[in-house]
């Protein structure tokens, strides 16, 4: 199956046409990690968004830089997105992402290429930004349900 067809099964790109998915596929870079690898570190500058292709990662948040007991907020698996906050607000990474499965494969999308695509193709930009907002909303709803 072509990368663009697989991207069509990711919520972030739901609502895009075949040509638009091809344009997204053209700016994706596949990256592989092993268990325990840290994909992003809280506090670092970030200019990539990641789509989990395979494997499971944990989202770890530290209250302070030397927090002795960092908290795992949630695990994310196939089809999920991380790194979107730093991509849209240009702030530092809000959490660390560590691989907890034996291995993980992600598709990385660089901010500059992504923003250029969104600005040049308004429908694509609107749909992906709406889907990012919906994904952040879903994560917030998940957190509301934890500890209910």
């Amino acid at each position: 199956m072509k990368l663009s067809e697989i991207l069509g099964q990711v919520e972030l790109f739901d609502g895009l046409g075949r040509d638009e998915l091809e344009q997204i596929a053209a700016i994706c870079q596949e990256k592989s990690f092993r268990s325990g690898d840290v994909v992003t570190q809280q506090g670092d500058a970030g200019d990539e968004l990641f789509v989990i292709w395979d494997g499971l990662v944990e989202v770890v948040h530290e209250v302070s830089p030397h927090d002795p007991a960092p908290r795992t907020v949630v695990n994310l698996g196939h089809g999920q997105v991380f790194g979107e906050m730093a991509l849209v607000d240009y702030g530092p990474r809000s959490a660390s992402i560590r691989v907890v499965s034996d291995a993980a494969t992600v598709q990385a999308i660089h901010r500059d290429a992504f923003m250029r695509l969104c600005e040049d193709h308004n429908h694509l930009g609107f749909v992906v930004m709406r889907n990012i907002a919906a994904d952040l909303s879903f994560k917030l709803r998940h957190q509301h349900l934890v500890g209910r």
Partner: protein
Amino acid sequence: MTAIYKVSYVVRGGSHPGAILNEEKRPELGQRVKLGAQEFEVVEVVDLMPARGDFSFLHVTLQPPKK
């Protein structure tokens, strides 16, 4: 295109942080689900928000399986 279920798994009791995953099938009550190395039992399935496109959005409560 087949439906995709985006699931918010919350674990009742214990320290597991839960997970968000895409599933090909809608989880059912009593079903066993593996999150990493740990296995849990589904005790609640709720539609979290209306479906959009090919995606359905679910909240699933899990608990450690009864022996």
